[in-house]
């Protein structure tokens, strides 16, 4: 824990000295770097070291300085970008510079270290989430609204929400399809050694194809299909767009769903299955009452892996016109506009983390209820 907190203090110490804000006359022009006023540098230096000290003497309270450090960093980012823009033209942009990023990184690591301290002290974990409430409040009350990424977000407004929704739609549809196809396939394959080997081999092979290549590979067959059957074309199938993206994403998600399904079903204790048979359960009763409940926690972790994978692949899918948050990433890359890239990349990363956390929670819950993680 000390090591983690030391690792947290170093970027914060450096970040306090480095420039915090990059002010540019418009979003593409070069600009000037602004540093923090000495008072705030001092405050940040103190907050950088406090978690270390707290972990030494009051480990259960480490979360207090760590949370404060993060909230101060976010607040400073908001107020300093606001201050920089005073008297500037409407096109001027104030972005976060290296100091702000380093401090945020350090504060994040400090929060992680604080969580370890809290757990070691056996205290309830909710204190580790207070920072999220604080950041949420700062976002809502407009403190951050002058930060360039949010300025871009505001000008994109409803379109950004649409792309986010499209991203979620792509991920959930592909995941749903993968589960619908993969679950019966896993059940079927788990009882047959050769089938299982073949199915896993194919899914493995698909996984090794880079996502961009797979998307490219799908253009030709799908456009041929659409040309041969006009009915399919009117249903939205074509070489580019949502159809190839969903096809590729479903294929990608299939492997984790299948692999974990087969492993989970084979991992059900043989004794339990034999006992179930010997007590007169039908095949269906055996599956629903014994095999599925026992396989579910492991299986779900496959679904979680698939979901996280899909959040990433969906970003690439925008290249062939499927939409999603990837649109901003590629638009930003083309015009060298960092703020636009962040507008796509940060939410996509947060989405992956959120999906992972949500499904992990579900896994733990089920595991506990089903007696696995007892």
């Amino acid at each position, binding site marked *: 824990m000390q090591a983690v907190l030391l690792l947290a203090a170093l970027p914060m110490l450096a970040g306090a000295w480095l420039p915090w804000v990059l002010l540019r006359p418009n979003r593409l022009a070069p600009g000037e770097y602004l540093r923090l006023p000495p008072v705030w540098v001092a405050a940040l230096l103190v907050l950088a070291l406090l978690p270390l000290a707290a972990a030494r003497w009051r480990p259960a309270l480490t979360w207090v300085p760590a949370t404060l450090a993060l909230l101060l960093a976010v607040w400073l980012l908001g107020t300093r970008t606001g201050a920089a823009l005073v008297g500037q033209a409407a096109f001027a942009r104030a972005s976060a510079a290296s100091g702000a990023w380093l401090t945020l990184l350090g504060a994040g690591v400090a929060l992680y270290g604080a969580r370890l301290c809290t757990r070691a002290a056996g205290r309830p974990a909710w204190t580790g989430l207070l920072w999220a409430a604080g950041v949420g409040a700062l976002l809502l009350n407009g403190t951050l609204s002058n930060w360039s990424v949010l300025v871009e977000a505001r000008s994109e407004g409803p379109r950004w929400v649409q792309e986010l929704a499209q991203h979620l739609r792509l991920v959930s549809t592909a995941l749903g399809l993968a589960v619908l196809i993969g679950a019966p396939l896993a059940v079927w394959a788990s009882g047959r050694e050769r089938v299982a080997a073949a199915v896993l081999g194919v899914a493995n092979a698909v996984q090794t194809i880079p996502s961009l290549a797979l998307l490219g590979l799908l253009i030709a067959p799908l456009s041929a299909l659409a040309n041969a059957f006009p009915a399919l074309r009117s249903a939205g199938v074509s070489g580019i767009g949502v159809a190839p993206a969903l096809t590729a994403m479903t294929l990608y998600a299939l492997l984790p769903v299948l692999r974990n399904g087969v492993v989970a079903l084979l991992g059900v204790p*043989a*004794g*339990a299955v*034999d*006992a179930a*048979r010997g*007590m007169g*359960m039908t095949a269906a009763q055996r599956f629903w009452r014994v095999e599925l409940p026992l396989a579910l926690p492991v299986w779900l972790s496959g679904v979680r892996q698939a979901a996280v994978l899909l959040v990433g692949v969906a970003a690439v899918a925008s290249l062939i016109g499927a939409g999603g948050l990837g649109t901003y990433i590629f638009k930003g890359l083309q015009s060298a506009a960092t703020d636009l890239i962040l507008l796509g990349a940060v939410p996509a990363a947060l989405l992956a983390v959120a999906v992972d956390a949500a499904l992990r929670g579900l896994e733990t819950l089920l595991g506990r209820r089903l*007696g*696995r993680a007892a």
Partner: protein
Amino acid sequence: MIELHHLEKRFGGSLAVQDLNLIFPDGELTALLGPSGCGKTTTLRMINRLTEPSGGRVLLGGQDTRTLKPEALRRGIGYVIQQVGLFPHLNVAQNVATVPDLLGRDRRATAARVDELLDLVGLDPDTFRHKRPGELSGGQAQRVGVARALAADPPVLLMDEPFGALDPLARDRLQDAFRDIQRRLRKTVVMVTHDIDEALRLGDRVALMNAGRLEQFGTPDDLIYRPVSDFVRQFLGEDAALRQLAGQPVGRFMVALHGPDGLQPGRAGTGGAASPLPAVAVEETLNARSALSVLLREGTDRLTVTRGGQPVGTVGWHDLRASGPERP
């Protein structure tokens, strides 16, 4: 009563069980004994059709088991296996209630039945009802396994090496507990075992199998004192008689004292009336093999048998041979 008629099981080209004819009497425990690979487990699994016979018939209470749906047949037969096979995601009570639930029995009656069964197998219901299988020791888990098999009160119980995976101490205790349960319930039990001691100790009858065939079927005494083949003699070993004695308390063999006068009763073949009690005494719960060892060690012909320190009878060489071939 379970009857096997010309039962046969073929796996590929080889016969695992051939022309097996056996009758398991009602209310008795029959041990299916034999070296590994002799077909005893296959035979057991053909009774509840976990393995379908290739030929022959199994009659359960006179009814051909092929006329029943396998699931219906199995719900009427208790089943205990070496791996125990408790469902790890369900608690003890839910595990025990499995078959009554499958049969659609009333929930409240089942809950009462579960408590009764946990009591029967020596587990306190209040302590164990809500535990998960993962929290139980091996012995406790198999006690739950036995309770689960008995839950729907089936007349027949099939047990496949039920105590095979336990450490010796737990196995002894569970064997004792199960013998008491069987004495009370009088189920028709078929127990597969490769453990000769277990077969001699628990079995009312023993069916010794070899290479898919029945070698001998009889009481433990029959097998020990009247083996029908060299294989039976060799399989039981030269110390079979001692092994059988080891499974029984010396109290079973003693000649009881008639009255509280402290005098030995007159007895044909062992000498005169009213001789004083032997000097060396053993408690009646001591196993008979140890009592025999005491006789050898002390170089004497008779021992006094005591209950709580009070003499209640005597025992000598001839008495320990009582189950042997030349009954005095």
